[in-house]
């Protein structure tokens, strides 16, 4: 076979693999939309978006309102980011600026390994470790609440946040740092006033990607947040985020019923939320690269 032909065959093969991702992405999106749209034959848009009562297996009349689940998702994600961002950015700053090569060579693989822990395992820790600990600490009768889920999700977001913001800080030109130190600033001032602001777009992208991971996570929140469908009153309420609802109810729902279609509609909402976060992260990263 001549080499041109080999080349062209491989180009086609690789092109297919490249486009496959796009095809799958759109395939999933349209599958969700086409199934989800049927839910609105019986469920009104106002009920779906503004009611906080989700009870498909109600005694009298089933209700399909997503408000409390969306609120739960946002609450848990926000709390998780509140915990993960300071720790993640701090860890990245330490790795870039202060850690000796030897320490960094141990820490970096360890952080990457954190990403490899299955979410079921982390959820399990939430039940047997974090939950009882929170209950004792705050004097509540149980620890299955939004805070528990947020702590677990923060742990899961850390590897993403640390490794990407580390890259961002590492990419800040050495001359900036040298100039700052030459002007008499100490290392702390250099870090906070020069390196972090210069790498900010990369750090923000890291945070957004971490957030995308957090909002789509299912297993850990399902196990640790208590799964109560009421509107969350605070960080100690038991909550049930969107992902948990889909995971719990999909297994038992009879196919082609309103309940089945509404779960797809939930999937569309979740897809759109993560899509927006990822696109934003991407836009910010692009800006960061051009710089």
């Amino acid at each position, binding site marked *: 076979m001549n080499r041109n032909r080999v080349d062209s065959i491989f180009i086609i093969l690789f092109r297919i693999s490249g486009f496959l991702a796009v095809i799958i992405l759109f395939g999933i999106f349209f599958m969700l939309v086409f199934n989800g749209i049927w839910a609105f034959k019986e469920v009104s848009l106002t009920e779906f978006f503004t009611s906080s009562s989700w009870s498909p297996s109600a005694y009298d009349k089933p209700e399909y309102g997503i408000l*409390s689940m969306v609120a739960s998702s946002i609450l848990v994600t926000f709390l998780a980011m509140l915990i993960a961002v300071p720790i993640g950015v701090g860890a990245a700053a330490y790795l870039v600026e202060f850690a000796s090569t030897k320490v960094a060579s141990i820490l970096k693989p360890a952080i990457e390994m954190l990403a490899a822990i299955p979410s079921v395992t982390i959820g399990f820790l939430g039940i047997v470790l974090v*939950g009882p600990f929170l*209950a004792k600490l705050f004097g509540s*009768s*149980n620890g299955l609440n939004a805070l528990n889920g947020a702590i677990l999700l923060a742990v899961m977001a850390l590897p993403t946040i640390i490794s990407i913001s580390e890259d961002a800080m590492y990419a800040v030109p050495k001359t900036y740092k040298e100039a700052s130190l030459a002007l008499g600033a100490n290392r702390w001032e250099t870090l906070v006033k020069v390196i972090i602001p210069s790498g900010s777009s990369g750090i923000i992208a890291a945070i957004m990607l971490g957030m995308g991971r957090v909002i789509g996570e299912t297993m850990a929140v399902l196990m640790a947040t208590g*799964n109560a469908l009421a509107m969350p009153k605070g960080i100690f309420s*038991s909550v049930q985020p969107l992902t948990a609802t889909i995971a719990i*109810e999909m297994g*038992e729902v009879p196919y082609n019923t309103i309940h089945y279609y509404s779960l797809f509609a939930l999937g569309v909402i979740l897809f759109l939320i993560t899509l927006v976060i990822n696109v934003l992260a991407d836009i910010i990263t692009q800006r960061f690269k051009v710089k």
Partner: protein
Amino acid sequence: MKQFWIFIVLCCLGCQKRNIKTIVVRGSDTEVNLVLMLAESYMSTHPDVSIAVTGGGSGTGIAALINKKTDIANSSRAFKPIEIKLAKERNVDVTPIIFAVDALSFIVNESSVIDSLSLTQAQEIYTGKITNWSIIGGKDQEISLYGRQSNSGTYSFIQEHILKGDYSLHMKQMNGTSQIIENIKNDVAGIGYVGIGYIINEGGQVIDGIKVLKIYTDNQHKAITPVNSDNIHNGTYPIVRPLYQYLDGKPTDELKNFIVYELSAEGQKIISKNGYFPITEANKTINNKCL
């Protein structure tokens, strides 16, 4: 490499020759351990039969039977009319067998001062009308509700027979019965509902860490405990339910042998040993029609 393939082929031939028959059992979380015990005991005397028992909830088992994905659907609730209709459309001839009797029990933490509950109180607690233990004579603590997810037969049974309405949105929906028990052990303000087999150990005693509530109906003045089997047999304990195994049509061959074994004196002995109760004469009459 060649030897490896020969080995694989021989293995396949070996399997075919021995001709192991497999029975798939799916469904109720209340029944899963019990049926596993029955299956293990049956398989020990019938090495040519393999019985695979998994849980997931009654709803999961029923959906699997309708979708022809299981031989036996364990269910702690009866088929709903809509499910029977769905099954008929898909040419599944739903055949019920009652193989054991369960006493649904309400449990609280062992440190609770509450000993008994009326059915009305149970209803008001789970619908969210009563939210503090002090209203029914307990400590001034907010009640922490534990229940199952909507694919659970126990969830549906309580909703239909006790609540006659909707669950409180504050109820924490647990994945399985064991999870409810583990949480009640730690939650001093918790209440949960479970099948009796889960809270009785091999010695016939209630497991540590929890208290089983006595139940009284409105016209009874004495609260009745489910732990004493006499109360089940003479019908004084008010929340007794049959445990079903649903089949597609009348059973034949090995499937029939297994069902007959479950209903035999030996099978019923295993059922009693696991904390559940043997079937009644009335149950037997229904079963005989379906065998």
